[in-house]
């Protein structure tokens, strides 16, 4: 109950063997996840080389996310990532079960950065809303009929993002750029799922207030 029961873990063999055509995609993703899981379990079992693999596997996501939390203060992020991996290494000596290492590391990083920022700026707990989340977007490769249309689209987007609070930006980034589920976003930001939903609902409300919805939807549904 408290631990990862071996009986709940499907055998590697059954995951890697495609049963039929339909499950090929699923198998592909499971295979990717398995190699992550394999690195993780090698690390958990005390394989020191695997620690470097864990580092290489997750450091990019941590860096990208971290840079947005600290408004580009690179040294602060580097220090925080250092602390996160040192903590991870120490944790490994214990029996704590980490089911989702990437999520776990992102969460620890967030806490570490907030701690460091609070110390540096003398902020209190409640001030988290004032910690900026700096993120910029560009249009992904999409065909537009004209340069004007593209410019218009970008302007709409700019308005949307400027209407968001810092935490709304963070939630959106975690979900769309890092691919976390809303449940994970909630857990990461120490909120309950309902609060994340409210957060998102409020940001959409603001968008609606700012833009005439019909125009807005027109722009985002064309192409």
């Amino acid at each position, binding site marked *: *109950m408290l631990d990862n029961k071996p009986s709940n873990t499907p055998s590697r063999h059954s995951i890697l063997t495609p049963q039929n055509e339909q499950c090929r995609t699923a198998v592909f993703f499971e295979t990717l996840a398995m190699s992550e899981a394999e690195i993780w379990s090698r690390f958990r079992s005390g394989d020191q080389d695997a620690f*470097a693999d864990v580092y290489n596997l997750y450091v990019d996501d941590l860096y990208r996310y971290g840079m947005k939390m600290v408004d580009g203060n690179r040294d602060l992020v580097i220090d925080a990532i250092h602390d996160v991996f040192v903590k991870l290494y120490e944790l490994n000596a214990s029996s704590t079960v980490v089911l989702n290492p990437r999520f776990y590391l992102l969460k620890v990083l967030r806490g570490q950065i907030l701690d460091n920022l609070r110390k540096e700026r003398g902020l209190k707990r409640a001030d988290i809303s004032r910690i900026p989340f700096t993120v910029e977007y*560009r249009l992904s490769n999409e065909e537009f009929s004209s340069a004007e249309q593209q410019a218009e689209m970008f302007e709409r987007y700019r308005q949307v993002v400027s209407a968001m609070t810092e935490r709304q930006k963070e939630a959106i980034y975690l979900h769309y750029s890092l691919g976390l589920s809303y449940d994970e976003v*909630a857990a990461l930001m120490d909120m309950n799922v309902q609060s994340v939903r409210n957060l998102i609902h409020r940001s959409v409300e603001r968008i609606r207030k700012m833009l005439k919805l019909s125009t807005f939807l027109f722009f985002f549904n064309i192409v």
Partner: protein
Amino acid sequence: MNKDLDLLDSIFTRFESIEQELDNQTRKMLWERIARDTLQSNHARSLTPHASRRRRLFTAVSAAAAVLILCLAGYFSFHTEPDSPINYDSVAQYFPHEIENIQLVLPDRIVEIRKNPSVVYEPGCVIADGVKYPIAQSDEIHQFIVPFGKTADVQLADGSKVRVNAGSKLIYKSGMGGTRRQVYVNGEVFLDVFHDENRPFTVKTNRLDVRVLGTEFDVRAYDDEEVQSVVLVSGSVSVSADLLDQRYRISPEQCFSYNTSNCDISIRQVPVENYIAWMDGLMILDNAPLKEVFRQINRYYNVEIVYDSSLENVRISGKLDIRSSVEDTLETIGLVAGTQYRFEEGKYCISAR
């Protein structure tokens, strides 16, 4: 709501975030720094307790309490046989809400656990926060104390696993006894008992006595609650209360509850998930009076809550995520119960909206 999500999808799937990437040189330098602070210094780090730092962090009050504990625990560790019952009431009592960090109380020291709320017993030692503390004798009395606002795991010497809820205390012998295994609980724990037919396992509270072979179950016995309960997930246990002659055998998905003021006993079928949801950071409320809800919130978050007496019997149902902030939780309750909160002089004041 789904419309909202669709709207966001329609925007954000068309954009990608601009990323500043970690350059290779920094990547390498950062790794070298991490490796230097972990792999190479590992030996020294894990074997050297930071004694001086820990000492500095004690306040005068807790130091006094510590001395008391050390004396009593030390006394008992010399005066117990492997199978003799522990005289729990005599073991120094101080309460989880009075401490800030999780504590492992050993005969010769108190280990404050700050980083990793998980303690593991191995032959001859106990590991807390990555540090090994040697165990001189297998019948030393150890205490594991979890303050309000935290939960923690212990893996006992016999391999049994215990999740300890906020505001709870677990007392046991370092080696878990000879032919009889025994733990004492004040508060709430979930136990996954290692199966060993030859060494029956007993859980005691100040009023209950639960006998087990190998099984998973939840015991709840908080001093500030009238009812103590045992909820069985799997296996089989028998329960007795106070000095009753009779033992009651309960089956999986049954809850044995004992009212400590009128000595009423009930055994009923219950949705087990509700009783062990706290392990996943959830509080499941089924027509629960606000009085009860606020008491639990006080325990989980270690915050003081005051409320108008007219609210105490308002009942609410639902699922609360108690890993979110106390503000979020109070806000969620407010949505259901029609209350609002304000923070004043270190207390959360709840009033009707």
